């Protein structure tokens, strides 16, 4: 099903686990304040509230996802991340999360800057377009990769910005963000950093200013 831009992609059933949610839950300190950008149906926030007693709030653009959040009892704001977070005070959250969201935004740099302004720390997780299988698919099949992390065809993908781990690392340098932690994974299993660029199909970062 096509997604609206700016809302976390609907994940297919086989992609439910293991996922970035578990990694993020481990990263977040108990009792912190959390803003989840592109929170989808609020699953991550619900688990964070239950397991880490956080005070959390979500932002998403799709009506159906807001309804789902309200059913879960999650506070959520219907908004467009591409408009920035101008009415959110600087450093007003311990963590701001972009979980599988950055690649669906129109203006990722604005979104990243706003994330780092509003949060003391930022957590970004995204599918690594530079994953070896993606490279091989493009190289040998000559077609855009379609697989577990990219289950869409080119015309219905919500992912409008494709980037690799290395691209993201460069962007962090350009924007002056410090990488506090990097967790490269392949289908939920940690991958050695040395091979992360090609062996990880997903990467998660903890960033500070």
């Amino acid at each position, binding site marked *: 099903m096509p997604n609206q831009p700016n809302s976390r992609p609907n994940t297919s059933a086989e992609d439910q686990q293991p996922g970035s949610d578990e990694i993020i839950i481990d990263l977040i300190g108990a009792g912190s304040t959390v803003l989840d950008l592109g929170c989808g149906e609020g699953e991550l926030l619900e688990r964070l509230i239950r397991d880490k007693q956080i005070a959390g709030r979500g932002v998403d653009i799709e*009506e159906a996802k807001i*309804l789902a959040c309200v059913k879960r009892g999650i*506070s959520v704001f219907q908004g467009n991340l591409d408009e920035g977070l101008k009415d959110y005070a600087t450093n007003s959250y311990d963590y701001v999360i972009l979980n599988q969201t950055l690649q669906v935004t129109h203006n990722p740099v604005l979104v990243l800057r706003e994330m780092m302004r509003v949060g003391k720390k930022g957590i970004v997780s995204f599918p690594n377009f530079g994953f070896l299988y993606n490279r091989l698919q493009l190289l040998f099949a000559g077609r855009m990769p379609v697989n577990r992390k990219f289950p869409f065809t080119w015309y219905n993908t919500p992912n409008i910005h494709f980037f690799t781990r290395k691209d993201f690392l460069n962007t962090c340098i350009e924007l002056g963000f410090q990488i506090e932690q990097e967790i490269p994974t392949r289908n939920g299993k940690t991958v050695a950093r040395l091979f992360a660029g090609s062996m990880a199909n997903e990467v998660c970062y903890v960033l500070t200013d």
Partner: protein
Amino acid sequence: MPEKNTEQDTARGSSVGVVQPQDIQLADEDNPLILDNGRSFAPINVRYETYGRLNKERSNAVLILHAFSGDAHAAGYHSPEDQKPGWWDPMIGPGRAFDTTKYFIISSNVLGGCQGTTGPASVSPETGKPYGLSFPVITIADMVRLQERLIDALGIDRLLAVAGGSMGGMQALEWAVGYPERVRSAMVLSSTARLNAQGIAFNAVGRNAITTDCRWAGGDYYGEETPSTGLAIARMIGHITYLSDESMRMKFGRRLQQRATYGYDFSDQFEVESYLQHQGDKFVDRFDANSYLYLSKAMDYFDMSESYGGLTNAFSRTGAKFLVISYSSDWLYPTYQSKEMVYAMMKSGLDVTFIELASPYGHDSFLLDAGRQTELISSFLEKAYAESTE
């Protein structure tokens, strides 16, 4: 208040059935209501209705707050023959958003109204005649002050929720901020923390239509012919602001009422014209022109930012949970106004959910669009109720 649109009545559950309005005196000489304008006012009668049962912990009470032309009759029917249910009937009843098998629902007519609660058409004990313009100018906060007495009289310490759309949303905001210890949660629909210039402008035109009707007679028309022409025009203007370009196009288009082709004379009436005429005519039978003046003025004065030294300060006073809903086609209370208050709530650290529902019905959407509203409100209330019993 629009006619109930049965096409949109997708609400689940059933009606509360036949209900009985109640009257209660909540202010007298010894215990007058102190108004924002400094005046002490008494006596005051309040007309109200309740649906469902108060539990023994008295923790399941929900106060419903009506909009400009609404009344205490929010749900059910007044007799088995009654054809017209209360104004928010699709939302209130067993299994509905405000589920009367779980919650005790209270709805009262506002101060200054004309549907049972003391207003300008009520008789002044001093003169033995209707107040007319000697009725004090009231505010949204005064309405809420009076409602607090009703809640006291019903033996309720803390409301599980307050909920209302438009002017009802203003009251819900005032409740949460003015009486933080008495409100657990608030639902604010199609509303604003301060009426904008456009809203004031339309209210002013409505008031002008009334006061320039020669039968208005400085507000002293009781017992004589009423300023029905002015009041009907005011209502017609109001109705235009409650609809949207799209809803008018869908409902009326350019169709003529009586003829198939133009007759090129002034007896040609477009459907939209006769609709407005009908709404205006119906309104004058049930609404007092002076109440129109007083209630619209109360909305004009409403500005929480002014009353509490900024919106963020206002919301810092309360710990209530909020659900704020706006509608995409509502140009009278546009989404940006809802967002403005939500941002202030977030800055104050409040637990708030905001959603703009896509709907073609303009400002009236909150009265018509029961389906998604039901999902939102019932989930929100359930969570608030569960938290209240933790």
